[in-house]
Every structure is written in C-alpha cells, then in structure tokens.
C-alpha cells in the first residue's frame, strides 16, 4: 500500500489517535499489556510468514475471496445505479467476523497465549471466535450479556458445540457493552496466558487498527473485483456500522479514492427520536471501552442503552476511526430504522435469493433509498456483511409469524 503524504489511510498516530478519537483509555493494569500487544503486532506486520499464514487460512478455511455479485434483479427493480453485493455472507461461519478472528488468533499464537476470550452481542463474533479457537485447539471463553444469551439461543448452542464456554454476564444492562466490560475485567486478571479477541474496531489502541487491517481484505478484494467487472472504481460504497469493522474493512482501501463516495449506515431502531443505536446521529464524543469516540450517553456521561432489531448493531458506541471519518466528512453516516431493514431483508431475499443478515439489510435499505436517485451509469458496492439464517427467528417474530 502506498501512503501518500496527505493520505487518509495513515492513521492512527503512534499513540493510537484518529484526530481526537481513539487512544488508550484503560486502567494502568492493562496499559503495559496493550503496549506489549502493539509491539507484537508491529513485528507481525513486517513478518512475511505471518501474512502468508493469514492469507492461507483466509483462502482455504474461510473461503476467500468472497464474490462480488452484481445484483441485477435488485438493480432493475430500483431503476438507478448498478448494485454489487460484496458477499461476506458466504464466508465460513456466515459473516465477515471470521476475517478478524483469524488474524487475532494468529497473533495470540505468536504471543504464546494459550487461552482465548471474546465478547459477543448477537453471538456472531462469539461463534467466529469459538471457531478459530477450535481450529487452533485453544480453550475459549465467550462473554455474552444474559439478555442476549436468552434471545440468541441458536448461537449459544453453536458456541458450545465448538467447545467454548459461554459466560452469561449479569452485570449492568446485561447486553453487549456489559459483555465487553466483563471480558476486559477477566482479561485484566488473566493476561499472563489469555488473549482477548475483540470483535470490532473498538477497544484501546491497537485494536481498532489491527481489526481494521485484518478486515481490509474486504475492500482490497472488492477494488480488484470491481475493476475487473466494470473497468473502473465504484461511485459509492455502503456498509452497515455496528462497531464498524465490516464497514472500515470495505472503506479503508478506498479512502484516498476521491471519486468514491462512502456511506456508513447506523441503526436507527425505532427512529432517532425513539430507541436507537445511532451513536453518530444521536450521541456525543466520550470515553468508553478504552477509546474516545461518539457514544450514546446522558448529560452526565452515563452510557445509555442502544436498541436495534439487529443485535450486531446494538452497541452504544462506534469505532474511533469512524468518528474521525465522520468529523472530517470523508464518510457520510445515515440512519436506517428497524422497519426499513426488515423490509429490505425480505426484498433482497425475494429478488436475489440471498437472505442477508439484519445488519446487512440496513445497508441494503440505504441502497434502495439512494440507487434510484443516481443514473444507471453509476455503480454502488454494498457490503453484504453476513447471512441472515441467524435472524429468521427475529424476523418471524417481527412479522408476527409463529415458527
């Protein structure tokens, strides 16, 4: 990758900051350990053997490259820009999450760590982590809010089948942010032998950077694939943003391509004046989980609960690099509601025979909104970050169907 002097791709700075965002806001106990993680990551970055093993696993285990699918029927239906779907749903375990897990477990191995922990909300990152832990034969503990354990039983069972221990977190609001708190607490006490695989571009530096780097395979592939299909770069990228890992993975390789408009989709839940998970649209900068970023919070800085029909977007924060891209205006962030996502979930399924994850359906909904406003000479790539099999119970419930 060439780094132009005025590139948007050189961040974070050496202290892990993207503008005012990011950083390492952790207890002193953790500080030496994340500095150690950073040293090992720097060494891995320049080690060809690390990259070779990462690439090998992505190709032969995950099934990469994932296709870039021209969604012709959706395009015709919308009557505007051509829509391509980056098919992360076809990865092993059904989402982009595995890309990052492969990278981090290789780091764990390199650091000689023998136990794996992770947080999970919907269970997608938990399943992906349990999967790589099984592959490498390492014991694995997944922290999951008790509320999420109750509503995501199939993924809980999957994790257990994969050999992971699932800890139902009873503290706080018992959802994803509390699972992350609990994973951090466990890590502080067990860091001598334990590696924490964070599931998105959040947490203290260097996590937002390394997760982004591992996910950037999405955008690198998409760039080569669109050049082959269209002979040019796309006019727009669209991806859903929870913590923001699939989105930054797609966006990052295009940040310096000025002609490419970039749109991140936040979950607007019941709407921005009701319960939602749109940290940029409805939050303010603050400090949580080791970094400074936009957060849903009250005037005293107490973190408020997020809501989205999509459990993977149900997080009151957003990765710090997104906060920065938002503030400098390089990426435009738009809200999509539960109802819009639900409609797009069904539409894509009927028109393309692809059942998208509810997270991904948020991006599809945005594409439906935007594509008709653009000419049919324009090209949009939408990140289909995962498949929707995990969501059929939620969708059935929302549609009033008893299974």
């Amino acid at each position, binding site marked *: 990758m060439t780094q132009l002097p005025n590139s948007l791709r050189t961040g974070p700075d050496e202290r892990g900051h993207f503008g005012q965002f990011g950083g390492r*806001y952790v*207890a*002193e106990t953790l500080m030496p350990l994340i500095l150690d993680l950073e040293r090992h990551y720097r060494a891995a970055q320049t080690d060809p053997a690390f990259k070779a093993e990462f690439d090998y696993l992505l190709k032969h285990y995950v099934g990469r490259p994932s296709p870039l699918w021209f969604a012709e029927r959706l395009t015709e239906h919308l009557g505007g820009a051509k829509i391509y779907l980056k098919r992360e749903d076809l990865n092993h375990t059904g989402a982009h999450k595995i890309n990052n897990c492969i990278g981090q477990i290789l780091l764990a191995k390199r650091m000689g760590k023998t136990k794996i922990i992770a947080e999970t909300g919907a269970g997608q990152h938990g399943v992906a982590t349990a999967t790589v832990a099984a592959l490498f034969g390492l014991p694995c503990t997944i922290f999951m809010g008790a509320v999420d354990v109750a509503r995501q039983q199939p993924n809980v069972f999957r994790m257990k089948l994969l050999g992971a221990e699932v800890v139902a977190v009873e503290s*706080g609001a018992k959802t994803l942010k509390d699972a992350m708190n609990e994973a951090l*607490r466990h890590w502080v006490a067990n860091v001598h032998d334990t590696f924490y695989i964070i599931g998105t571009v959040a947490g203290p530096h260097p996590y937002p950077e390394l997760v982004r780097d591992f996910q950037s395979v999405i955008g690198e592939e998409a760039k080569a694939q669109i050049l082959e299909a269209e002979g040019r770069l796309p006019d727009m990228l669209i991806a859903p943003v929870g913590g923001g890992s699939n989105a930054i993975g797609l966006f990052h390789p295009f940040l310096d391509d000025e002609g490419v408009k970039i749109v991140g989709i936040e979950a607007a839940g019941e709407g921005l004046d009701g319960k939602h998970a749109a940290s940029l649209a409805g939050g303010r900068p*603050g400090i949580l989980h*080791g970094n400074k970023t936009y957060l849903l919070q009250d005037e*005293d*800085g107490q973190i408020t609960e997020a809501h989205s029909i999509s459990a993977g977007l149900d997080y009151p924060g957003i990765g710090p690099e997104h906060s920065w891209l938002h503030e400098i205006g390089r990426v435009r962030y738009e809200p999509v509601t539960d109802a819009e996502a639900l409609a797009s979930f069904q539409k894509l399924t009927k028109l393309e025979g692809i059942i998208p994850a509810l997270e991904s359906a948020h991006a599809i909904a945005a594409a439906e909104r935007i594509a008709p406003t653009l000419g049919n000479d324009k090209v949009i790539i939408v990140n289909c970050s995962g498949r929707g099999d995990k969501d059929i119970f939620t969708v059935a419930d929302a549609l009033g169907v008893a299974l």
Partner: protein
Amino acid sequence: MTNRFAAAFAKPHAALVAFITGGDGDTAANLDALVAGGADVIELGMPFTDPMADGPAIQAANLRSLAKGTTTADLFAIAAAFRNRHPDTPLVLMGYANPMTIRGADWFAAECAKAGVDGVICVDIPSEEDGELGPALRVAGVDLIRLATPTTDAARLPDVLNGAGGFLYYVSVAGITGLQQAAQTSIDEAVARLKAATDLPIAVGFGVRTPEQAAAIAKVADGVVVGSAFIDIIAQHGDAAAPYVEAFTRTLADAIHGAKEIAA
C-alpha cells in the same frame, strides 16, 4: 500536595483510606461514620454505568446509586456538604473518565475545587492519555492521584509518577476490585520499589477486607485502601448501614493505626 493530604500522611501511623460509592445508601451518614470510626482519607466513588475495573460489589453499588437517580451534581453536593462538616479530612473523588470529562476537564476541576475535593483518581486515564484532566486539576489546585499496579514496570513508572500528586495508589492485584488479595510478600516488594522512586505516600488497595490484612500492609505502606468490604455492609444494611460502617471502620483503623510507627 494539598495540606489535608500532608496532614493525613504526617500522622505517626499509616492511614486508613476508606472508599464508598456516592449515592449508594445514606451517603452523608456513612461518610460521617467513616470519619467517626477513624478513617484518615475518604474516597468517594462517582457512579458510572460501566465500571470496567470494578468487581461485583462495587458494580452493584454503582447501579444502585444510578437507579436512585444520582447525578454528578448530587455527587458534588455530597462532597461540598462533607467538606462543611469535616474541614480536615482529605476527600478524593474516584471514578471513570467519561463522567469526569463529559463537560470538559476544566469544568470538572473547577467543581472539585469548589466542593473542597483534595484529589481525583480516574481509573481509565493512564498517563499516556492525560493531556487534559491532570493539567486542569493542577491548575485548580486539586491533586491527580495516579495508580501503579503489579504490571507497571520500571520503564513506565516515571511516566506514571510524572504529574502525580496526593499519594500513589498501589493496586496490589492485577485484576478488579474486591476479589483476590495479593500475597503480602509481593506487596512488601512493590512498596519498597515504589518508595525508591517517589516521595509520595504509598497507599495499597484492592482485595483488602480484614483488619489482619490491613495491619500487615500498614507495616510497610503509608496507607491502606478498603472499599468493597464497606460496600458489602452498605449493600446488606441499606439506609441503616451507618452504625455498622462505623464499627467496622473502627476495627480497621485500630489495626492500621497500631501496626507500626512510620517516621513522618
């Protein structure tokens, strides 16, 4: 160092540093009970929804306080009233970065000064990120109390000490509050190491629950921090906890104050 800290640590014995969460139970009564029972320094916890470094007891105290609607304004009111009733006892606010900085570090520092707060411990602002809070507090005449841990190595210690005031809080276990306790030999070694690096008084905490543990630590350290054990009493007795808090404080204070003579 503020005068109140200097006086508290100049006593001929180690200090009992007592922590309770603001807004959990009858905080004013419990604070009075701590002072009456012999606590030398008070740490008042600012409740936060996401107390990442705390164990189950203090987590629950945070949530109980927030569930009652405790605000930052309430916390400063509790602090200011304490200062009126107890002009000499050092008062420390302990909490997390977001509630402390959300209105700006300058605002927070000024409120601390106004309320008569002597020091601030911010769990999740390590020295690397302390470009704003520490400087703002120093301008306001409030000490920033830093944490050192078993993982703070010799290379980092100077950074941790740079800008540190009041006392140095040695977190004796690599973990969260209230659970494990450290082996006394590891505490002895750590305190000796820290004393070689700073003139600040060293207070040791995390996992200290009994008068016996407290006394052993008081033999080597300048202060002993006890938190979760008080929180447990408040959890058990609710708004009527003060007499129990006072009695327990006295057993701790007796053990700590009698443990040895420290040259002032």
